[in-house]
């Protein structure tokens, strides 16, 4: 494996990591607000904050990690995306800023402000929508490039069926991933009431998830046939596996057993879909301007980055395991018996 492929694989893995942990967080915010509206917050909100409080900051780092990494590995992305994404990127930053700080204000400062909870819940759905813009742009067709400047074609983006189907998929996936995880967490906590509510959420979001995925496929065929062909001819099996995992997960949730396995299946479902999507997108990083091989950083830097990757992971993986052991797999903590 050459350095640039290794680089993009690691970066993609981090983006996948962000997809999972951020989805749990984003969806949890929405569910917490929804439960407050329905006056059911006493059932699930303690559970949610018990999980989120120690980890929300880590979630944010996954994202920072990805964008610092991609600019480092492929400096041309800074030029194209940087110019194009000024507005959508700034909107995403502002939403993330509001969300992160109001989470802290709500949880550590003055508890139980419905307005804070609203901001927290609403931004949780808007952030995935705004971040998905970057993925949409990577399919090409939304930039006009001349020798002197890159212009973002906002109108094209807003009227494209493809971009809307991606937005739809991102929001629905967030809610589905989050609900399955929280069902599992409630199950671990032996909290039947919370589990019942969350299981309903999870079941509810299964159908939209599959509909949205199909929509993305169909609109991709219209928008970028090159990518679509590669996805269905070379990587069809990955999407097949994804569908299989989805079915197994839905089944377990439906019969109300093995929520842990169900969540792992959901993770695998998104793993296969995400990597199938990513692999079929290559060699383009931004179609058709940035490719994997032509726009990689110089060799000295690439080597240094990969070295730091490995050293960093040696530090991070045990730390993350410790974090999970203390707050995810410690039954007493999950049940709220330990502080």
């Amino acid at each position, binding site marked *: 494996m050459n350095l640039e492929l290794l680089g993009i694989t690691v970066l993609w893995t981090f983006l996948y990591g962000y997809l999972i942990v951020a989805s749990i967080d984003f969806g949890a915010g929405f569910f917490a607000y929804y439960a407050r509206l329905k006056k059911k917050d006493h059932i699930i909100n303690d559970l949610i904050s018990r999980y989120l*409080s*120690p980890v929300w*900051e*880590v979630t*944010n*780092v996954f*994202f*920072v*990690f990805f964008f*610092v*990494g991609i*600019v*480092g*590995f492929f*400096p*041309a*992305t*800074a*030029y*194209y*995306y*940087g*110019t194009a994404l*000024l*507005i959508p*990127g700034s*909107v*995403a*930053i*502002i939403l*993330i*800023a*509001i*969300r*992160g*700080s*109001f989470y*802290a*204000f709500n949880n*550590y*400062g*003055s508890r139980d402000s419905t307005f804070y909870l609203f901001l927290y819940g609403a931004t949780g759905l808007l952030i995935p929508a705004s971040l998905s813009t970057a993925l949409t742009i990577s399919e090409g067709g939304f930039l006009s490039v001349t020798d*002197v*400047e890159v212009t*973002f074609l906002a109108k094209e983006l807003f009227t494209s069926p493809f971009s809307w189907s991606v937005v739809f998929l991102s929001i629905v996936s967030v809610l589905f991933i989050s609900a399955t995880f929280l069902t599992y967490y409630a199950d671990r906590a032996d909290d039947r009431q919370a589990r019942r509510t969350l299981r309903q959420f999870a079941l509810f979001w299964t159908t939209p998830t599959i509909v949205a995925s199909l929509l993305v496929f169909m609109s991709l065929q219209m928008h970028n046939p090159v990518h679509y062909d590669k996805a269905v001819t070379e990587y069809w099996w990955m999407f097949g596996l994804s569908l299989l995992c989805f079915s197994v997960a839905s089944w377990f949730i439906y019969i109300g057993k093995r929520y842990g396995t169900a969540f792992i299946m959901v993770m695998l479902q998104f793993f296969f879909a995400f990597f199938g999507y990513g692999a079929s997108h290559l060699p383009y990083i931004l179609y058709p301007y940035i490719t994997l091989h032509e726009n990689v*950083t*110089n060799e*000295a*830097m690439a080597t*240094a*980055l990969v070295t730091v990757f490995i050293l*960093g992971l040696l*530090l*991070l993986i045990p*730390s993350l395991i*410790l*974090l999970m052991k*203390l*707050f995810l797999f410690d039954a007493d903590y999950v049940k709220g018996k330990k*502080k």
Partner: protein
Amino acid sequence: MELDSVMLSRMLTTMTLMFHIIFATIGVGVPIMIAIAEFIGIKKNDPYYLLLARRWARGFTITVAVGVVTGTAIGLQLSLLWPSFMEVAGQVIALPLFMETFAFFFEAIFLGIYLYTWDRFKGKWTHWLLTIPVMIGSSASALFITTVNAFMNTPQGFDLKNGEMINIEPIAAMFNPATPSKVMHVVMTSYMTSAAILAAIAAFAILKGRKGAYERKALRLTVTCTLIFSIIVSVTGDVSAKFLAEVQPEKLAAAEWHFETEKEADLIFFGTLNENGEIENEIRIPKFLSFLAGNSFDTEVIGLEEFPEDERPPLWIHYMFDIMVSIGMFVLAVSALYVIAGRVKKWNELNKPLLWAIVASGPLSMVAIEAGWILAEVGRQPWILRGYLKVAEAATTSNSVGLTFVMFALLYLVLGVMTVVVLIKMFKNSPAEAELEKRFPNRG
């Protein structure tokens, strides 16, 4: 001044950074103070210090949250506002940027664990040990990000050929000439400022009539730390000045209004410039600039005249230099006075003027941080990459920067106000004495 995208990009970056460094400074310095307080608390088995660590940690979470989100903002804005710079320099500075996120990751994980495991472990030291990765993480991220800034001041580790960077050496770029003095000064001023802010809070509580053992112990600990750190800061500041004199003389010359290259150069303190560019109303310390630049009164100090006019930094950075240095000396003097007053039996270290001076030291230190950064950043104008790339060539070509500026201005306004409101509310609703009773009911 024309509000083109270059100017607006500069303004937006300035605003984001000025807002972020308030929280970044606290983020680097406060973990040290928390670790010290918990250490003393365990060592002496003194619940006051343990409570101090807990309460600081609780307030810290709020500032960390704002620090994290504004840090994310500046990270992305680098690419959004300066795409050409990142495309060129990204080839060389990706490594420290990346290492910074690792350090940040490391800190985030252990801070989460630290905050939620106060009563988890049997041995008290186990919990204290968690402060070590937090301190390493926060100080290391300051270190790495400062190397990036140092690189922009003294670029090295590459050759430029036809606008392309070749022969890149990432490590050499990181450890460029400006790195040691900058990193030391940044980290130490963060420690000092955080200690001074915590001292200001304690002093204010005492002035408001809460004179219990908790507040007194907090004050003694924080002011002593402020004194130690500010002594180190004055040393690192001196090292930085000598570095500038040698490597980046135009910055020192502009900061000191030193126009002609000469030996036995005078140090200018305060003062104004008249329309002929002559210095008026100044305090002139003879030959001291030479001493500052090279430890002897006949060191030759390079003047601004040696540089072409379009490569000189603006002269108003002199005021930033004055603000930074005089606040540094003020804080050093105030904390030294307090510590001495505590030792001399006849003196009362809790007298009102001294307490008010300590209260002032906290926010003033933050002002000094801002002034120092403005001095450092504006001092390398017009360059973004000194000697290689000018600011005007690096900014985005987008015409939406104005709108973005307004959006971020509103965001920082809301976040700033909310942070203050939430922090005040948080501690007003739970006084220290009550919490002490609740948490440590069996203390002697």
